[in-house]
């Protein structure tokens, strides 16, 4: 049982509707409530349009919720102090293309105010097998390499809480193993990761807990230690057939 002191993210009755009052009105989130605890890797899964990215964007403070409360270690998403605790890896692969890998990471290190950033950068480039590409232009990188680059940015400042939006969508199997290994070490340092993905097997291998959302609602919230291996895939298929998760 997790204690209140361990809470890193608390969301209560969060709702968000796009294009309110118009024909294309979409309820992206409906009264979502959840709590994440330190040292946990949580998977956020659900079909396309379920509300995963909207939830992440609201946690990051990129857009406001219509109602509800989001608290990250006691701070609101738009509080600047949150940026010391929280970091983010985006799902898209459009990182600014004017830079080389090294200059892009150096820029983020400067903005994070990291002392001796060279050491940290070399360590992360090595971990994610990007050392050979460090002087290449981002423009010339493959989709998977750009995704690794964004992953490095999210782990750059060693923050307590990392949001990963579809982190494995463009990665090849060896890179997925590297990421899994890295996230495992991250957890052992007591850090928290919220991991949104469509890859159920991957989520099952990495996460301690899985939150399934659909049509803006939490359908299920399960600790994987309490269920059997392969549970997620079976449960997902059952949900597709019967609109019931368990």
């Amino acid at each position, binding site marked *: 049982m997790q204690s209140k002191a361990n809470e890193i993210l608390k969301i209560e009755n969060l709702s968000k509707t796009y294009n309110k009052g118009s024909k294309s009105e979409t309820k992206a989130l409906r009264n979502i409530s959840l709590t994440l605890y330190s040292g946990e890797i949580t998977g956020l899964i659900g079909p396309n349009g379920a509300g995963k*990215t909207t939830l992440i964007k609201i946690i990051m403070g990129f*857009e406001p919720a219509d109602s509800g409360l989001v608290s990250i270690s006691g701070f609101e998403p738009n509080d600047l102090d949150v*940026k010391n605790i929280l970091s983010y890896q985006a799902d898209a692969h*459009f990182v600014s293309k004017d830079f080389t890998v090294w200059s892009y990471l150096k820029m*983020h290190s400067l*903005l994070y105010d990291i002392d001796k950033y060279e050491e940290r950068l070399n360590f992360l480039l090595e971990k994610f097998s990007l050392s050979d590409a460090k002087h290449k232009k981002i423009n010339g990188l493959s989709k998977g390499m750009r995704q690794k680059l964004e992953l490095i*940015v999210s782990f750059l400042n060693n923050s307590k809480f990392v949001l990963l939006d579809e982190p494995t969508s463009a990665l090849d199997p060896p890179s997925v193993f590297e990421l899994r290994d890295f996230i495992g070490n991250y957890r052992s340092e007591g850090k928290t990761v919220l991991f949104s993905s469509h890859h159920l097997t991957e989520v099952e291998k990495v996460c301690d807990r899985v939150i399934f959302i659909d049509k803006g609602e939490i359908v299920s919230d399960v600790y994987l230690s309490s269920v059997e291996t392969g549970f997620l895939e079976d449960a997902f298929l059952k949900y597709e057939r019967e609109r019931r998760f368990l």
Partner: protein
Amino acid sequence: MRLFYKLIMIDFLRQWNFTKVSILLVLTVIAGFLSALPGIMGWVAEIPALYMPLTDYLLQIWKIIVPFSVLFFSSGIIAGDIKNHWIRSILIHRITRQDLLLSKIIATLVSVIITMMLLGALPVIVFATGIGVKLDFNILNFVQVLMYFIFEAILFITIATWLSCFLNGFMNIFVLAFWMFLDNILMKGVLSLWMSNSFAGSVIIDVFFPSGFSEAAIVASTSGIFPYESLLWGFASLSFFLGIAIFSFSKINIDKSSD
């Protein structure tokens, strides 16, 4: 504060990509060559003037260069950076939207000032040196005119930034160019004849189609009078556009990706 300076530097360096550096270098070389040509060819040997008033020449040149360099450096200033996810990538740091907006305006301003010097001041000096005429250089007058054009550049950059909050791609500079055209052709010409007598007319002309700062530069340079009225209109306009630019940027959706 240190972070804010870093942000300005990063944005400034991003603006000077290979294409922009090349274009500006080529233009500087052409402007320098054309300015040196009369001296080299001896075309102006019979010019009687012994002194050339630097500020008067700069006034005429900057009136053209400032709007064009603003258009050059502020195309898609917000929309482009939302599209390539730059703004989202920066806002993961301890940076407010207001700081980011102001840093972008300042970085663009620095680029515009460099262009003003390279394509404005340098050719005039080359021209004067080439024909062997001394430059009449009044430091106070120069600084005053330079300051007014810097404010004018800030005003145009701010308008371009505001427009870029809701116009896609490079559309902001097309609209800004059209705005400048309206300002010069319609507002300051035909319409001002019957609109300037009313308060509403003055507001429309001087706040929404602003040229207070360039007028201030002309007044200061030609009459030597301190241009209170033009400056007040200029600052009124700048405050208005800066206010709506900050408001628009604070509301804009910076991440258009979806689930």
